[in-house]
């Protein structure tokens, strides 16, 4: 057949940080829901603990799609075997900044940094690579971060 075009759905990668700050899991599920409603296919990449928190919370996979190991995601993107249209990096510590800088360098995705926790203002100052920061002082209560996310509405961009 000729003349037919197959349009692939837009994709997004959620790069999870250490799950020690409670809002991460909640905001990740919220973001996945908004992305899916917008027709964007989300993939989650995190360490074992961060991924397991999501998988256990969503046993029937109403929200979650593909979940992969963070190191594996880095390898696949670096080796250009896979990439995404959007990439959301969760940041509440220096390691999160390091992963975000890495994603900015290795991926062609539009980078969104989701910055939260007690030290979010100091972390926000370290966004000296191309990205759209979404930041709020949120530790246990996800609503300030949800509000910041809704204001940017990255699923609509």
């Amino acid at each position, binding site marked *: 057949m000729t003349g037919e075009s197959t349009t692939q759905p837009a994709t997004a990668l959620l790069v999870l940080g250490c799950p020690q700050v409670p809002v991460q899991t909640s905001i990740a599920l919220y973001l996945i829901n908004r992305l899916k409603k917008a027709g964007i296919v989300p993939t989650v990449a995190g360490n074992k*603990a961060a991924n397991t928190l999501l998988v256990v919370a969503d046993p029937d996979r109403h929200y979650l799609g593909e979940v992969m190991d963070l190191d594996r995601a880095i390898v696949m993107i670096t080796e250009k075997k896979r990439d995404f249209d959007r990439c959301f990096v969760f940041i509440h510590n220096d390691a999160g900044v*390091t992963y975000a800088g890495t994603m900015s360098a290795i991926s062609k995705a539009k980078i969104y940094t989701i910055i939260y926790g007690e030290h979010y203002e100091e972390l926000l100052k370290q966004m000296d690579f191309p990205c759209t920061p979404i930041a709020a002082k949120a530790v246990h209560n996800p609503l300030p971060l949800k509000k910041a996310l809704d204001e940017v509405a990255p699923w609509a961009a």
Partner: protein
Amino acid sequence: MGCVESMNYEIVLRDATFKESRDFIKKTYAEFRDVEPGFKVFDVHVIGLPPIAIGLDGDFVIFPYTKPCHGTFLLRVEDKEEVARLRAIKK
């Protein structure tokens, strides 16, 4: 990412920020190379804010390794072949 656990490594610096680890390499080792994120050292794709400094000290390679919950470690691994490969990279 390759399995760091399978390497015979020494931890030179632990619980550092990425920038602290980069400064440590540049101040401590006379010889280093700057590489981009994703560059392979041994079987590990190094991550970090570019440029990432890799230290060279005799037959040892010193490189950063970041874990989401534990920050950045500097690992020191002896390997003549890897050192030679890295030395061949232009500064």
